[in-house]
Each structure stands twice: as C-alpha cells, then as structure tokens.
C-alpha cells in the first residue's frame, strides 16, 4: 500500500514539476477558461442590460454553465494529456517497464487534474464575482460539491477512454483528446435546458451524467435545492461509465501490448 502511494506521489510530482519553471504551461491551465468566461460573461451582461429578469436568470445559468463545462473538459484533459505528455517526451517506455501500475498512474492523473480544476474553478469564480457580481458559492451552496463530483467523475471516465485510445493508437488519435468532450457537449444540456432538444436527442442526453448535473445546476439556482434523483442518476451512470471506461482502457492496453504498439509509443 505504501509502495503504491509512493508511486502515485512520484507521478503527481512528475506532473507538478512541469509547472515549476514553465510559465506558459501554468498560465495555459487558466488561459482558455478565463478568456471564454470574459467574452461570454460580458456578452450576457450586455443582454441583461437590454432585457428583463428572465434574461438575468439566463445570464446566471450561462456563467455557471461555462464554469461547469470547464470542470468537465479539464478533468478529461487532466487524464489524457498526462498520458500523451509521456508519449511526446519519449518517456512512456520507461514508465511502462517500471513498477508503476497503470491504476496508480491513472490515480496520479486524477489527482493532478483535480488540482488543476481547483485552481481553474477558484480563478473563474473570482473573475465571475469581480466582473459580473456572480457568486458561485452563494448560488449553489453546498450543492456545488455533489454537482462538481459528478462532473469530475464523468470527465475522468472520458479521460480514461481517451487515454486508452492514445495508448492503443499513439499520435494518430491525439486530436481526439480535444475532440471527445465536444462530442457530448450538444447533448449535455449545458447552455440550454434538456427540453430544448428534440425528443429523439433527449434520449441520448438522458444517458449522459452531465445532463443531470447541468439540469440540476439550473434547478438549484431556481429552487435552492437539488433533487436527489438528479444526483443519484448521475452517480449511477458515472459508475457504469467508469467501469466501462476501465474495461475499455484495459482492452486497449492489452491490444497495444499484443500488437507491439506499446513499445513503439512515442517513436512514430
């Protein structure tokens, strides 16, 4: 157990070291989320001035949705980019032959991603409060914790799937790291309620844990409470997707090992 924690700590240390002397890399954590929030925040602020309280409500939803979307997106990226980092630096074989277990490696990427998300959420909340008088904690209260936890879990599940693809196919599928979250974006009811989607697409949406998080977020803002079923359905779906993602990764890893791809990662 101690050996395992030590290896997880080693990998966390490995990723944290990347930020110690690279300002661009550190700034990149918050750069895009901040830019998005600034642009869309000011747009919604402008709309709010033009219109009434209904639009004001929409402004609150949108700002919240942008922060939440970033949690989902960055948690997926935290896992997959960490894997690809070691392919880029041609270090992956050193890790794969070390006593590091794949599960320990993945846990380290979770912790690294979680740290980045805490930084991002803090920065975005600060900006939202400063420029738009929007207080994330006041709006969502303690419901922030179950909502964020479900987003994190789903992001991690997506990250495991992407990392599996990268392990199996290497550089050829790197574009998917950035693309996969956008596959689920239109169906997750992020910037609009689920009811906006046509009934057929709603069926897809209902299979995504993220839908219940974003619907739940809007419900909390309107009613000051989170329906338990939203949380439980999201958690249940996340559990299923987590297991499926793990099985998928395992399949990809063993496929790469069987095909000889594993030893060649980073060399193509």
């Amino acid at each position, binding site marked *: 157990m101690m050996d395992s924690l030590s290896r997880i700590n*080693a990998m966390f240390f490995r990723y944290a070291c990347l930020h110690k002397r690279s300002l661009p890399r550190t700034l990149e954590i918050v750069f895009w989320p901040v830019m998005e929030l600034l642009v869309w925040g000011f747009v919604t602020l402008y709309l709010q001035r033009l219109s009434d309280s209904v639009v004001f409500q929409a402004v609150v939803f949108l700002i919240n949705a942008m922060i939440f979307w970033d949690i989902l997106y960055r948690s997926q990226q935290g896992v997959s980019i960490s894997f690809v980092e070691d392919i880029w630096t041609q270090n992956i074989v050193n890790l794969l032959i*070390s006593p590091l277990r794949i599960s320990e490696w993945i846990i380290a990427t979770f912790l690294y991603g979680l740290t980045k998300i805490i930084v991002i959420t803090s920065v975005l909340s600060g900006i939202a409060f400063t420029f738009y008088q929007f207080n994330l904690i006041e709006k969502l209260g303690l419901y922030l914790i179950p909502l964020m936890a479900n987003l994190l879990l789903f992001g991690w599940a997506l990250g495991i799937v992407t990392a599996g693809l990268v392990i199996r196919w290497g550089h050829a599928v790197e574009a998917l790291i950035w693309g996969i979250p956008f596959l689920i974006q239109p169906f997750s009811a992020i910037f609009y309620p689920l009811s906006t989607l046509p009934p057929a697409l709603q069926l897809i949406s209902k299979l995504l844990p993220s839908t219940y998080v974003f619907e739940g977020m809007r419900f909390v803002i309107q009613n000051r409470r989170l329906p338990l079923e939203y949380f439980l359905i999201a958690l249940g779906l996340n559990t299923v997707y987590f297991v499926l993602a793990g099985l998928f990764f395992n399949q990809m890893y063993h496929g790469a090992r069987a095909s000889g791809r594993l*030893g060649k990662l980073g060399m193509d």
Partner: protein
Amino acid sequence: MWHNFRMPSKSRAEHEPLVVTKNLCRTYGRIRALQNLNLSLRRGEILGLLGPNGAGKTTAIHILLGLLAATSGEASVLGLSPFKERHQIAKRVNFSSAYVQLPSNLKVMENLTLYAKLYGVPNSPSKIQELLELFEITHLRNRITGSLSAGEKTRLGLIKCLLNDPLLLLLDEPTVSLDPEMADTVRKILKRIQRERNMGILYTSHNMPEVQEMCDRILFIHQGRTITEGLPGDILKAFESQTLEQVFIKIVRSGDLISP
C-alpha cells in the same frame, strides 16, 4: 550453420538463469520478427544480442520487458513470465536505450528522484549522488534534461537504469551517442558495476569492438533467426575471422545461406 559453444565457467549459483527463452516466436502479420529464439542469461554474465537492423533484437527485448506478447514459445525473466507477472519482475530489472528518453522538461535531479520513487529506492538521495559521481555528471544535477547533450542524456539514462540495483539489465545500444573517450569510460563503469553486483546484462550494439570488449557470450540473430551463439573467441574461429565486424558482415551478406 548452427554453432552452439561452451558456456564460460562460473559457480553453480551464478548459473541460475535470469533469462530463459524457449522457441520464442513473434510474427507481425506475415513478417516473422523472431523465430524460435532460444537464449539463456545467467547472473554475472553479459550476453551480446547482435544482428543487423530489423533482426529481431528489439522485439526480443520488448518481450522480455513485458511490453510485447510472444506469438508462441516461452520467455522467463527471474523465473517469472514477463507478460503475466511484469510487476513482480519490474523492481529487479531495468532497461536503457538510446531511443528512449527521460522527460526533457524535468531537471536531471527531478527525473532521477521520480524514478527512485517509482522503484522504491531506499536512501535515494545518496544513491543518486553516488551514481551521478560515477558517471561524472554531478554538475548537471540542476540542469533541464532537454538541454543536455546526447552523451549526457545517455549517461543519465544509464544512471536511471542502475538506480534500483537491478539483477538484470537490458541495454539497447547504450553507447551509441557517446564520443569514444566517454564510451570507453561508460563501458568500464558498466563492467565494474556488473562485476561488483553480479548483474546479468543483455547488451545490444552495432559497435563490434565494443561487443568484443564487453560481452562474455554472443548470440547473432538475423531475420528473426539465431545464426550463431557462443564465446567471442570461438565465434571468430568458427567464422575464420579476425574481428566480430567481419563475422557480422559475413552473416548479413550471406543471408539465408548461413541460416541454420
């Protein structure tokens, strides 16, 4: 032509094999990368695995590291299956290759600390210091790895693979990017450490004088097949050659004619 020569004499304990392969085969579609490879490596022995590019050396090493499944045959490392029991083996085995790098964006010391932690090296700061001094790169400890010369990176890779005091070391062209003087120093260090720790080393190189200097025994493979195996002196006699380079050229140019 199959030459199977005598083993160098060692004590019985040292003859416990670290690596054994039996009829090891690996195919990629129609390509036969490895055909019935039989090798054994004992403690305290350096076995040179030689052959031209594409001969199957890397395939064999990847199978022994658990990175690749064999199509058929058996492989055993420290008495265990590298494919099924990689984790039990990993702590006592290490690998360095000219084609595998340490993260370029970490400092030398950070990289070594990372791997010392991954291998659970006790008292790692003094171990790292000892190896940095041995390979004469103590002054680089706070340098970013990406800013090192190729030779310095090679030495760093070798330090990484000695951190865990491995019983078995797999070295894939370890001196390829070193100047002759540094390559000589590195060979002497490796030889010394190997003797002191009674380590087994599987060594690949295209530098034949180096192989002659380093290896107790040699196994030539070509197009996935074993061509010859034995002591360097015996192989030279059998091929009526003065140097291993001449043997190498004979084997490669003869192609299938010289196959067993």
